[in-house]
C-alpha cells in the first residue's frame, strides 16, 4: 500500500464504515441459486426426457432391423402392455409389496448402519478392525448371502430383509464414519475453543458437518438395497404374495417377453425416482453450504 494515498481519506465522514460494509456486501458472492423452481425442474427434466427418447429410438431401430423379431418386442407393444398392466390390480399389488420391503429393508439398514457408524467412529480401536470388516462386507455381492439367508430364515420376507440389510447397512455406516473422519480439523478446533464438548460437539458440529457424506452413504446404501431386493424377489418366491420379482419370474416361466420388459421398465423407473430424491436432498444440502457446482 502506498503511503501517500491513504485508503481512508474521508474516514471522518459519518457513515463511512456503513458505506464500506455495503460495498463489501456487493463483493460478496451473489446468490445465483435463486432461479425459479420451474426453471430448475425443467433443467433436471429435459436430459431425462432426451435419454428416454434416445433409448426408445435405438430400441425401435433394433426392432425394425428384424433381430430376433419373433421374441424381441418393440417399444410400442411393450408400452401398451405396460399400460394394460397398470389398469390391473396385480401390478399395483406387486409394486406395493416390493415398495414395502424396500422401505422396511432400507429403513432398518439406515438404523443399523447409523448405530454401527456412530459407535465405530467414536471408539478408535474399533474403527481399524470394524472399518475393514465393513469394507469387506461391501465388496461381497449380497446375492451370495441368499443360500445362507434361506437356510436360516426359510422362504420368507425375513430372508429378503436380511440380505438387504447386509448389502446396504455397510454403506450407510461407511458414509457416517467418513463424514465424522473428515470433519474439517479447523472447525473442530473452533468448536472446542467455543466450549463444545462430547455430546454437544457431536450434536452441533460433527453430525451437521458429516451430513453430506452421510447422505452420499444413504444414496449408495439405497442402490445396494434395491439390487439386493430385486435379487431376493427373484430367488425367494413366496406364494400368494405378488411382487415385482414374482411377476418377472412368472413372465420368465411363460416366456412372456413383452410383460417381462414392461416390468423391467417399472423397476427402472422406481429406482430412478428414489435416486432422484436423494439427488435433490444432496443438492439442497450443498446449496445451503455454498458447495454446489453448476452441474447439480
Amino acid at each position, binding site marked *: *500500500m502506498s503511503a501517500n494515498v491513504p485508503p*481512508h481519506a474521508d474516514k471522518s465522514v459519518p457513515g463511512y464504515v456503513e458505506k464500506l*460494509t455495503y460495498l*463489501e*456486501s456487493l463483493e460478496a458472492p451473489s*446468490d445465483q441459486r435463486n432461479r425459479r423452481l420451474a426453471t430448475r425442474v425443467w433443467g433436471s427434466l429435459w436430459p431425462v426426457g432426451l435419454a428416454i427418447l434416445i433409448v426408445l429410438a435405438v430400441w425401435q431401430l433394433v426392432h425394425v432391423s428384424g433381430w430376433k423379431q419373433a421374441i424381441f418386442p418393440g417399444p410400442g407393444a411393450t408400452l401398451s402392455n405396460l399400460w394394460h398392466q397398470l389398469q390391473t390390480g396385480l401390478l399395483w399389488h406387486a409394486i406395493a409389496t416390493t415398495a414395502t420391503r424396500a422401505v422396511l429393508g432400507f429403513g432398518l439398514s439406515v438404523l443399523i448402519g447409523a448405530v454401527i457408524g456412530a459407535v465405530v467412529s467414536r471408539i478408535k480401536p474399533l474403527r481399524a478392525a470394524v472399518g475393514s470388516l465393513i469394507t469387506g462386507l461391501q465388496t461381497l455381492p449380497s446375492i451370495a448371502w441368499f443360500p445362507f439367508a434361506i437356510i436360516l430364515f426359510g422362504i420368507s420376507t425375513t430372508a429378503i430383509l436380511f440380505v438387504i440389510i447386509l448389502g446396504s447397512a455397510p454403506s450407510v455406516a461407511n458414509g457416517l464414519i467418513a463424514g465424522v473422519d473428515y470433519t474439517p480439523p479447523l472447525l473442530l478446533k473452533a468448536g*472446542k*475453543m467455543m466450549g463444545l464438548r462430547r455430546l454437544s460437539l457431536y450434536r452441533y458440529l460433527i453430525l451437521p458437518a458429516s451430513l453430506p457424506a452421510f447422505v452420499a452413504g444413504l444414496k449408495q446404501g439405497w442402490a445396494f438395497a434395491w439390487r439386493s431386493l430385486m435379487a431376493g424377489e427373484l430367488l425367494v418366491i413366496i406364494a400368494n404374495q405378488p411382487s415385482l420379482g414374482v411377476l418377472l419370474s412368472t413372465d420368465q416361466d411363460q416366456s412372456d417377453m413383452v410383460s417381462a420388459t414392461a416390468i423391467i421398465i417399472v423397476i427402472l423407473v422406481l429406482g430412478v425416482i428414489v435416486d432422484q430424491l436423494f439427488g435433490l436432498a444432496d443438492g439442497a444440502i450443498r446449496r*445451503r453450504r*455454498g458447495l454446489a457446482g453448476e452441474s447439480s
Partner: protein
Amino acid sequence: MVRQVNSVTVTDRRAAPQAGGLRGHGATVRLTGVSKVFGRGNSAVRALDQVSLEVPPGEFTCLIGASGCGKSTLLSLVAGLEQPTSGEVSTGGAKVAFMFQEPALFPWLTAAGNVELALRARGLGKAERRQRTAELLETVRLTGFGGKRPHQLSGGMRQRVALARALAQDADVLLMDEPFGALDAMTRDVLHDELDRICGDRALTVLFVTHNVREAVRLGDRVVVLSSRPGRVIAEFDVPIERPRRIDSAPVAELAAQVTDRLREEMSRDVS
C-alpha cells in the same frame, strides 16, 4: 532475552477496568521457559525454544516473525489445544477465544446461527441468545446480515462474523492468528479500526500473530519479535503511539522500520 524499550511511558490504556458495560476483565497470559518439539528422534523439529513472555491484563500484544517461527504454535499452547514439551503456560484460568486466519465458520449455519452457537455453548437461554446475537452483530456492524450463510458473505464480512463469535464466548483472552492475512488492504484497514474500538471497550487481553510489521505496530501496545527455527523471543518493542492510529502515519512507519531492521538482522544471521 533482549528487551528494547523504545519509550519511557508504557501505554497501558486498557489495564484499568472501566466501569459499566464491560464483559471481559482481561487476564494475564504467562509463558515461562516454554519449549515445543514436534516429532521425535532425527525428525524432531523444535518449534519453540525457551520462550518466556508475559502479557498483562488488557494488553494488546502482537507477535511477529518470519514464517516457521512457531507463532501459531505459541497460540495453540496458550489456547490449550496443544501441550508444551517443557515449561509452563498459564492464563490464570481465564477463558480463551481463538480467531484463525480462516473464518472457520460453520457453513450449515447462518451468520447469526454461528454467533448464537457460541452463546448456546455457554448455556444461555433462548431469549438472551437472540438479544446478544443481535448486539454482537451490531458490534461488528453486520446488522441485517444475520440471515446470510457464510458463503454468501465477503471475506471481510466472514471475519467480522468470526470476531463476533469470538466475542460471544465472553473470553478474557483473545488469540488471533493472522486473522486479516487473507484480506485486501482496504478491508483490513477498516477491520483494524473496528478491532481497536472493540478491544478498547472490553479490556481484552489480546495476542495477535502477524507477519505484517506495520499491522503489528498499528494494532499493538507491544510488539514481540520471534526468531525462526526454533522460535525464540529476540526483541520487544513498546508502541507509545497515541490512538487512534493510522497504518500509514509517520510514527507507525518509523517504528515499523525499526522492527523490520531487527527482523532483517535476524534473518541475515539465519542465512549466513
